[in-house]
């Protein structure tokens, strides 16, 4: 039953942004799993009975960066199947290439996008991943 409603895990340490994203996803019929740090997100994944359909990841987290987070995801085979979309304001040289090399599906710049634009991108990825 719950499978019909897509689930997205949001990893974002800016509480205001986390709140906005979660609210927007919910409004668009997506279940949001808000996590304000990398550790919290990993812990969440460990405890979830069903894995999320996608992960919305900020690059700069208080406890770890996106690269480390992706590294941890690689440790479990099932976790590597989850598409990760990086939505960040950090747009420095190596970061983007490294993240993409580590398996991130997309790297988006936060300030450039309206939430309205981000939701369909997320949905599209979930669709692509299922098929």
């Amino acid at each position: 039953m719950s499978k019909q409603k897509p689930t997205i895990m949001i990893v974002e340490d800016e509480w205001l942004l986390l709140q906005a994203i979660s609210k927007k996803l919910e409004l668009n019929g997506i279940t949001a799993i808000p996590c304000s740090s990398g550790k919290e997100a990993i812990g969440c994944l460990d405890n979830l009975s069903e894995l999320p359909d996608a992960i919305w990841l900020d690059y700069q987290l208080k406890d770890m960066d996106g690269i480390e987070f992706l590294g941890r995801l690689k440790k479990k085979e099932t976790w590597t199947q989850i598409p990760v979309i990086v939505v960040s304001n950090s747009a420095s040289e190596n970061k983007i290439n490294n993240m993409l090399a580590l398996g991130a599906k997309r790297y988006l710049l936060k300030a450039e996008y309206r939430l309205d634009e981000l939701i369909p991108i997320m949905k599209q990825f979930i669709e692509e991943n299922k098929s």
Partner: protein
Amino acid sequence: MDSQNSQSVPQSIGKILPESINNVNPPFPSKKNSTKIKDKLLLIAGFSAFTIALLCIFFYLSFLSSNLTIRFFIIGATVIIVSNTVVAILLFSKKTTESAVRTNEEIEINAKNNQGHKFDGEKRDDNGQSSKYFDETTEKLKASYFEDLEEKIQDKTKALAQRIVELNFEHKKSKEAEEKALIEQAKEEATLTSIGEGVVVTDPEGKILVFNHAAEQLTNWIASEVVGRFWFETVPAMYENGGLISRIDRDMYKALTTGKKVFAESIYLQKGARKITVAITATPIIFKNQIIGAVEVFRDISHEKEIDRMKTEFISLASHQLRTPLSAVKWFCEMLLNGDAGELNTEQKEYAQNVSDSNERMISLVNSLLNISRIESGRIIIDPKPTNMNELISGVVKEIKVKSDAKKQQIIVSVHSDLPLINIDPQLIREVYINLLTNASKYTPSGGEISVFISKKDDKLISQVSDNGYGIPKKDSDKIFQKFYRGENIIKIETDGNGLGLYLVKAIIESSGGSIWFESNEGTGLPAGRQGTSFYFSLPLSGTEAKKVKVTLNSSNVYNK
């Protein structure tokens, strides 16, 4: 006896030369003869004394002023020669006169001795004739000698005077030239010493000829150590990655071989292997179409480089830090306006929209700053892909239409019908069109017209973006591509604008191998059809070379749209 006498007379007549004196009648030594010899000796002695005195005077004068040695020597020598000649001539003429007189006397004596001789009368006659002849000859000789002498003296004096004038003139001239050269040298030395930049002058092979004070300080070498050595070997240059630059890639070598001025930045290795970042200008010295050497001027830019690096880092960090709160404002405004938190009334919507608009301006400023810091630090990727210009421009116009429609502006697009796919970075060129079209719309009053023409000319793709807007004031025309510069006329009309757009556009076009220029007519007095601005930019049809550095213009857009 008779025959003897008669024979002896013609003999002595035939010989007017001095040696005949000895032959003539030794049994009759006369008193007159001895006085003549005495006079002669006295004359010679006097003359010798005179010569010695002159010599002494000239030697003394020469000695006194060592500078004028040659001059006095020449004068001295000339005077001595002239006086010698005069005296020699005088002496000679005296001898001749004397011998003539003596012959006369001898004849008289002979005549007395041969009294009663039947040929007496005849002899007397002969004698009278010859004496007259001698007298005349003597007079003639005397006259001619003195005439000659006077002439000669006059000539010599004239020549001498002229020579002295010449010598004086030459001396003055050479002294002036020497002084002039010394002044020039002093000027040159002072200039070279006071210049803050290092100056090196080499011959065509690259051997150092001149090495100024600043060059000594910048390289740690001393001029006396390096002059005559090869510049390229003495001060090696390095690439930023630490690799040594070979001789043929050195800027000075390029100037020497191509005959063209070279501007560059490089890292020099000082004596002692310390590195120093320098800005270089290498200029060939060309004389009669030949490269006879080169001058390199270089200065330390380590400090500038460091400041530039810090600036870039600061902008990058600041931009990133600014983006987070801007994102929050953006998203919450969006949700408010979407009614995600309940419907807003008209006034609330208007206020929220104002917040959102201002926030968008801030976001675009931050983006521009970040892009510029990337371009300036060379950290921009040019990633060319075969691009359809028609599609690209359609996408851009679609985006711009939101703004231009609001101002009731018309956009006309015309693309060459037979354009191939062009290898350009679509992201970057899109940015260029967006900027030019945004400007065109922004700086054209409502109801205006904007047109885009994309055409082919030779091996270039030419794009033209025109408007019939406010135009660019003439005095601003050379500043319009400068960072943060905004035209004086439009700054009063449109407050929104950061003066970075055209700077960015120019940077993109130039790093893509193209060029950008514009034509503009500013002024309210102009007829509607004539005022406005046209921006043109060219791109090579052959495409842009890829530049693999680390960051694209807007990293976020890599996989977007």
